[in-house]
């Protein structure tokens, strides 16, 4: 149900289909080209839905690919290119948001989730130590027995 929604949009953008990264864009220096490709995978094509400029065939994506190759050729670092694009298009252009007051929670959450979950687990374990297991009532035992009958339960 999601794939074809996705696909249907891709179809729309393919109407005037060109292709992402055309042969004429490729830089002659393989090292620089590799950097350009890696960088363009982290930049959003702003007129597309959740596509990087590396994947997108929109004209804007092509313009950005050419632009960042120009800048890389001129000797700028990845961060300089990124800063330039952010100054022009805003943080929205970065597929990996930078750590700031807006994205602090976003970045902290995975680690925080693990830590909080871990602490909760430890607490639960500690609490569990003191209490004895609740025995089943006679009726519950009988019911369980009935359910278990006829099927073989192997201890694993």
């Amino acid at each position, binding site marked *: 149900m999601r*794939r074809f*929604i996705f696909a249907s949009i891709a179809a729309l953008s393919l*109407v005037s289909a060109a292709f992402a990264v055309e042969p004429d864009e490729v830089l002659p220096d393989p090292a620089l080209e590799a950097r350009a490709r890696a960088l363009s995978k982290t930049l959003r094509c702003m007129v597309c839905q959740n596509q990087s400029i590396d994947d997108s065939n929109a004209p804007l994506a092509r313009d950005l690919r050419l632009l960042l190759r120009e800048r890389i050729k001129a000797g700028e670092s990845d961060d300089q290119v990124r800063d330039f694009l952010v100054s022009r298009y805003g943080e929205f252009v970065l*597929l990996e948001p930078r750590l700031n007051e807006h994205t602090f929670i976003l970045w902290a959450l*995975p680690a925080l989730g693990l830590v909080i*979950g871990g602490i909760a687990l430890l607490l639960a374990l500690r609490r569990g130590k003191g209490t004895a297991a609740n025995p089943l*009532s006679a009726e519950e035992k009988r019911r369980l027995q009935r359910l278990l009958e*006829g099927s073989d339960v192997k201890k694993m």
Partner: protein
Amino acid sequence: MIAELGHFSLALAFALALLQAGISLWGAAKRDVTLMSVAGPMALAGFGFVAFAFFCLVAVYVQSDFSVASVYANSHSAQPLLYKVTGVWGNHEGSMLLWVLVLAIFSALVALFSGNLPMRLRANVLGVEGAIAAVFLLFILTTSNPFLRLDPPPVEGRELNPILQDIGLAIHPPLLYLGYVGFSISFAFAIAALIEGRIDAAWARWVRPWALVAWIFLTLGIAMGSYWAYYELGWGGYWFWDPVENASLMPWLAGTALLHSAVVMEKRDALKIWTVLLAILTFSLSLLGTFLVRSGVLTSVHTFANDPARGVFILAILTLFVGGSFTLFAWRATELKPGGLFAPISREGALVLNNLFLSAAAATVLTGTLYPLALEAITGAKISVGAPFFNRTAGPLFLCLLILMPAGPLLAWKRGDLAGVAQRLVVAAAISFAVAALSLWLVQGGPLLAAIGLFIALYAIAGALVEFADRTALFREPLAASLSRVVGLPRSAFGTTLAHLGIGLALLGIVAEAGWSEERIVALKAGDQVSIGQFDLQFKGVIPRQGPNWRDLVGRFEVRKGGVVVATMEPAKRTYLANGQSTTEAGIETFGFGQLYASLGDPTADGAVSARIYWKPLVTLIWLGGVVMAIGGACSISDRRLRIGAPQPARRSTLPAPAE
């Protein structure tokens, strides 16, 4: 006439579902045997009406009755029959009807196979299922009627979106819905447990096979969707961390956690409250997925139901079920008595850790998906959260999970021996490490991350095999003894091994694709040569080809390996005649587990045509791993103690135990 019959049938199904919910839940609350016994037949009848409505919709699609708005918008008389049928769910209205059909199927199955379930539990479960069906049927009838007529009727339809005219549409959405909606059963069981305020190992025994069924379908659905994107979209990607994809990954993660915690509950009577919570969470995430995709909240072109009325309705559904079930949980969970105790180092402990990581991963995906929406709503700031973020956050969580995975099944219940487990895994770890180091040396300058990933993938695979060898005492006892042990092994043990093996294989495919793929982006003229991997491709030129409702521009490649022709590839650029849209049809050849992948771009000014050619070693393992996991799930389901409908003493006529 057929459309009206379908519409009428849907309305009847709605009334019936409403009654099913009301009568069953009321009967269960009053312990009225007559009222409770109505639930089953009503669920079956409800399935009949929904199935008839669905059949009517298929019929108007097959007849190309363009007086029905949905047919007009999504079909064309020249479309092949298969795509006329699959077009039924290639749009909002029809896909919602499919959703409800799957729900009705599951309700009917529960009604059929739950004869030996305590009557109150059964009535409550079917009551909750009825309530879900009623709400979704109301949603369809009021906002998304697939049987809406057009007056005057158009002569020709607008055709199904070209990218959807693929066998993938026939398989992917039904599989995915079987997964999403299948989790409604564990949800219904959880709600029933909360209503009754009691839960026992027998409950877990009932929930686990249903959750397993849903999980198998969801696993296959996701794998299928991923492969579809891979071959259809033409740039060889298979996972984009797109919100709609995340929407299906979240219930999968929660559902996987549910399966594991249900094992603990069944075997050791522990983690009851947590299992109930997971059952609620998993279905809530399925509903959230439906909401994200259907409501247009993603403010994206992606979501094709951009009708705010629908969005608000779905939000109301979400609030009702998620809010309602969590309120019930907060109110009643304390009634559920905690059970079996265990030491931290034990099988239970390992499964808890598994749950911790899976939940953290689900939470990460959820946050990443919703964060931009929330941030924009609160502060107005627009940010993007895309693939690089998820790779960096959810990625390590998955890798940790896979490192821990082999140890789990080797630990004993209650109290395990970590040193003993480490001893048994050390060989697996050493071999994996050696191979990974070798790969780093062989692929000079290859990415270090790929070597680390390779190590973890191999270790997970080897770990699964070690566990299997351990169970069958392979190498410790004579082969014949081991073989007889294999025969005697419960099928759920095969299930564990296969599922764990599958995830290791999938990671191996992912690592190989990311680390060792080769790519050529070239402009080609007839006669040009490209070499990639161990292959030499010769471009033979471009020829036109005509299909029933499309026209192709086919590029022919002759593939040689060591001078011998091993294949011809024919990637194409396809233009659909009815609406002029075009798609890329990739040419794919499989060699071993690797694939050669070619897709064709546009002609360039100087008469050449641009093409992208990839060699992706081991890439098919990504999806085969998913299939192996699903087979593992199926093995586990066929285990005698879980088999649905296994002979049990009849309970139909007896009253449920009054002691509570």
